């Protein structure tokens, strides 16, 4: 039987049409499983959650700070001395003032953890020195040492030491949250840019309470991968 030259018939058209439909369904099925635009949606959601996750990290970190025991006098004073040397440019507290206060009020730090220390300072809120005391003790307890190495630094080939101190601030009274500038006590500088923020309320003897804020930069390593 001779075969005539193939013609573009309706069956061919329908075949192409069916092929296109299958192709389309395959693409739809793939998009449901996360390809194409779904991936962008997932990435968008993860970006949104990054902020929340940073806040949760900050929340856990602040809880850990609160449970930190204040060291004995000698260790605390040494920490204050060392910190003043570390933060030469950013230290606002007066070391002498801080030690004078702690010498006359050991009940604010002896056998106390950080939360109890903050609470005890609240009782002395009429005393201006507590601003320095809060800053000094916070830095002495929680400063961290960072290492950087840069060939362009003056001491090329040697490690340069940088120090970082967390930003913790206190506002009297129970608040949902508060902005920089409205706090009563602060240690460190406010975070600019993306970061995690946590608020915690603490009780006080006068039942008015106080609120503590902790801020930290959102670390890239903390981001979840899609």
């Amino acid at each position, binding site marked *: 039987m001779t075969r005539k030259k193939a013609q573009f*018939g*309706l069956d061919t058209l*329908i075949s192409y049409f069916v092929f296109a*439909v299958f192709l389309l369904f395959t693409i739809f099925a793939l998009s449901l499983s996360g390809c194409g635009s779904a991936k962008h949606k997932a990435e968008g959601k993860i970006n949104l959650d990054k902020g929340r*996750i940073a806040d949760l990290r900050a929340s856990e970190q602040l*809880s850990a700070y609160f449970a930190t025991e204040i060291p004995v006098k000698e260790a605390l004073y040494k920490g204050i001395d060392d910190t003043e040397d570390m933060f030469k440019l950013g230290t606002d507290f007066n070391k002498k003032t801080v030690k004078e206060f702690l010498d006359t009020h050991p009940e604010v730090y*002896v056998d106390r953890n950080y939360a109890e220390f903050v609470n005890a300072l609240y009782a002395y809120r009429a005393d201006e020195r507590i601003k320095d005391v809060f800053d000094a003790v916070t830095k002495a307890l929680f400063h961290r040492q960072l290492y950087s190495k840069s060939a362009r630094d003056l001491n090329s080939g040697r490690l340069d030491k940088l120090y970082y101190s967390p930003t913790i601030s206190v506002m009297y009274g129970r608040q949902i949250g508060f902005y920089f500038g409205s706090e009563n006590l602060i240690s460190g500088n406010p975070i600019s840019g993306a970061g995690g923020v946590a608020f915690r309320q*603490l009780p006080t003897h006068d039942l008015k309470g106080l609120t503590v804020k902790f801020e930290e930069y959102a670390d890239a390593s903390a981001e979840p991968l899609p």
Partner: protein
Amino acid sequence: MKKLIRNKKGVDSFTFLLTIFAILVLGFILVGLTMKYNKLNNTIGEAGSSASSILSAYASADRALLYLDNAVGMSMQSSIYDLAYNGFYLGGAPSKCGLNNNYQRWSEGLPDVDSSEIGLRMCNPLIEKCIPASYDANFKSAFLGRLNGQVSAYNNGSEVNLSGDGYELQLGKTEVLCPDKSMGCGGRNEGPFQLVGKTDKPMNMSSRRVNYTIMPSFRENADVDLAGHFERVTGKAFGLIAALEANPSMSEADITKILADYNKAENDLEWKKENYATDCAPLCDTGESCQVCITCCSEDEGEGGTGGEGGDGTGGGDDGGGESKCSTVCVPGKTAQMYCDYNLALGVKIVADAYKLKGDKKGYVGFVAENGGTPEVKKYEYRFSFNWVELQPSTTCIPIGAGPTCG
């Protein structure tokens, strides 16, 4: 298009129908999958949102529990202080021995007042003891009162509500409540005194997708060994009362020496005499009967009679001129004996060098609270007082009711 129509080859109808059928089936599958995805998306949400919601609920609970833990610690501090200040009694609820200048009395001489017919205390050399047998109930009452205050303050305006009720409290030495510290029950710094609060009342937090329930139980340690101090202080108090019963005329110097011996034996507690007072004027009722008599004399022209009194009815008269007629008038009475009333107030502080201020020899454990907005440093001090008497030899007769009269 014309070519297509003119194509005589035509289409197999079966193939055509099969194609249409397949397109319809695939269309239904697509719609079904899309609906299922949308339902899933609305229920669970986008990737990672559920985990994020759970962690947020956890953080919410953590905020409330952190407040509770700190409120418990603060309430323990204040409760221990109040209990110590009131000699292990509750403030406002003194012992049956009463108070002596705000110091709870742990002993009282001559407690019996009511049975005297002459309105005096009955002479009784024995000392009534009011040393508390335990401190648990009073501590729990003081603590829960303070905790409820803190919890109410927190709940005002908070989306998560704590409860100060429904706690079953256990308190005592940490080594007793937690004999095996490897189980992690030693508490913060393994402080000597521990309070455990268990509750069955759950705390609920709910968000759009998550319902989170926890039991806000707590375990807190205090740096004051309340249980140990109670045993030691009350033990020594019993010893002191026994010594006073044996020798009621013990001098102030003797007492000072005893306290010095206590301080030598114990480095962490300092006994101090706060006040010592003696009053040797009062009288007590011996219960023995006597008569109060006077002699009444009368004369025809002279003055009225004078009389004398005595314990056994003797009397005398005086002449005013002319003949006098005297008679003795007696009324029943009770023999009253003079006694010395002693009051000794003591304070026992907790010594810790870490609290020592410049120029001081010792430091004492305390904490800072507030009094009307002014900071107040409260040093823990166990305060109590003793009262005892020493009967004196001199006696007198006091009439029951009105005294004798002439005429």
